[in-house]
């Protein structure tokens, strides 16, 4: 069907059909009916997203490798890493809560990092990823289950609670979690699915021309 849909937009939240306006770099268009953001012109979106995502991956690796907090009371010291928390939850007989924490704070963030770096790096190198569809569908479904920022708030609250009963020392992982939260937010803000798909279409037509 030869229908030009290039400058038509449908609002994903209310389905209103409207024309896409010309946007200056950094400019955004909101839906005329419900006010949802429709498009935002983000220059060099792929490069910025990739840079922030690499930073987020490094920060998250540190967050996993180093101890999160150290507690000292009555001469006894305990410390825990992110994974140590999950192990302790399993050991105390609450596998269900352990699984919730494992999935939302460790598994999903890693899956998000690996999948998005796979997509961004290959597209940046000028290749269409083989697993394009499954990768994008995975990202689209899992993002909401990554809750490291909520975990960060939770660990600040528990820190304040613990200062009453023991001496608390923040470990490197605590700061790394904070850095990851900021970098991931920056990556999400820089990401523009429209320009990513535009690049993919250009790459596909180039591949077809070569074949």
């Amino acid at each position, binding site marked *: 069907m030869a*229908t030009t*849909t290039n400058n038509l937009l449908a609002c994903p939240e209310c*389905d209103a059909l409207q024309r896409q306006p010309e946007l200056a770099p950094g400019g955004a268009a909101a839906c005329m009916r419900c006010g949802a953001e429709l498009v935002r012109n983000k220059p060099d979106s792929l490069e910025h997203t990739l840079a922030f995502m690499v930073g987020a991956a490094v920060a998250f690796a540190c967050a996993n490798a180093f101890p999160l907090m150290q507690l000292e009371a009555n001469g006894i010291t305990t410390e825990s890493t992110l994974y140590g928390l999950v192990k302790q939850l399993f050991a105390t007989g*609450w596998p269900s809560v352990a699984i919730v924490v494992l999935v939302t704070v460790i598994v999903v963030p890693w899956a998000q990092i690996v999948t998005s770096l796979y997509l961004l790096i290959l597209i940046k190198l000028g290749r269409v990823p083989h697993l394009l*569809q499954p990768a994008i569908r995975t990202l689209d479904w899992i993002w909401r289950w990554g*809750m490291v920022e*909520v*975990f960060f*708030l939770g660990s600040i609250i*528990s820190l304040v609670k613990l200062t009453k009963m023991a001496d608390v020392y923040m470990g490197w992982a605590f700061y790394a979690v904070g850095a990851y939260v900021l970098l991931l937010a920056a990556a999400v803000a820089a990401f523009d699915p429209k320009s990513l798909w535009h690049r993919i279409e250009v790459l596909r037509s180039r591949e077809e021309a070569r074949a």
Partner: protein
Amino acid sequence: MTVTAASQGYLLCDGCYRLNHAGPEVLEPTCARCGTALHARKPASLACTWAYLLAAAILYIPANLLPVMDSAKLTILQSDTIWSGAVYLWNEGNRMLSAIVFIASIVIPAVKIVSLGWLLIAAQMRSTHNPLRRARLYRATAYIGRWSMVDIFVGAVLVGLVQFGAFAYVLPGPGAIFFAAVVVLTMLASASFDPRLTWDPLQEEQARER
């Protein structure tokens, strides 16, 4: 007058936001760019959202009544529900934290359940009254739901760290998993609700007036 994509035979792809044209003669349309199955509206959106929402509302009761955390300090054994944990923080002088826990764990899930219930009833009754307010309410509930998980993480950190043998320890209580389930179910409910259903009755009204 607003024209909707659906009324013109356009289907927006959920996966890549490409606007595809497919008439009713196409049985199972897929996106020309990314291959995702296309739907004018999320399939069975109202039924799925009701199911998740009712399950969340039921589990909200044990989540609040059962203790989420048991802690022991020497001989003092303490069992805390979410409410008593917030009260404890308030009495300790941590009013800020107490307010965060109270809002994130008790107020937000309740407000979210009631708001989504209202959005569902309004969509089902084909209400045309103030859709903009409902659209904003939906956006707010979809964004804020995840923060309710904060109390689970507070518990996880305390359980992981406070293990001083007999001197002091913290154990998760039976309410914790109900509470996590409420948060997950309300997130699934708002993800399965299609906000376009809020606006569709306006289109039907326009068509009737014409």
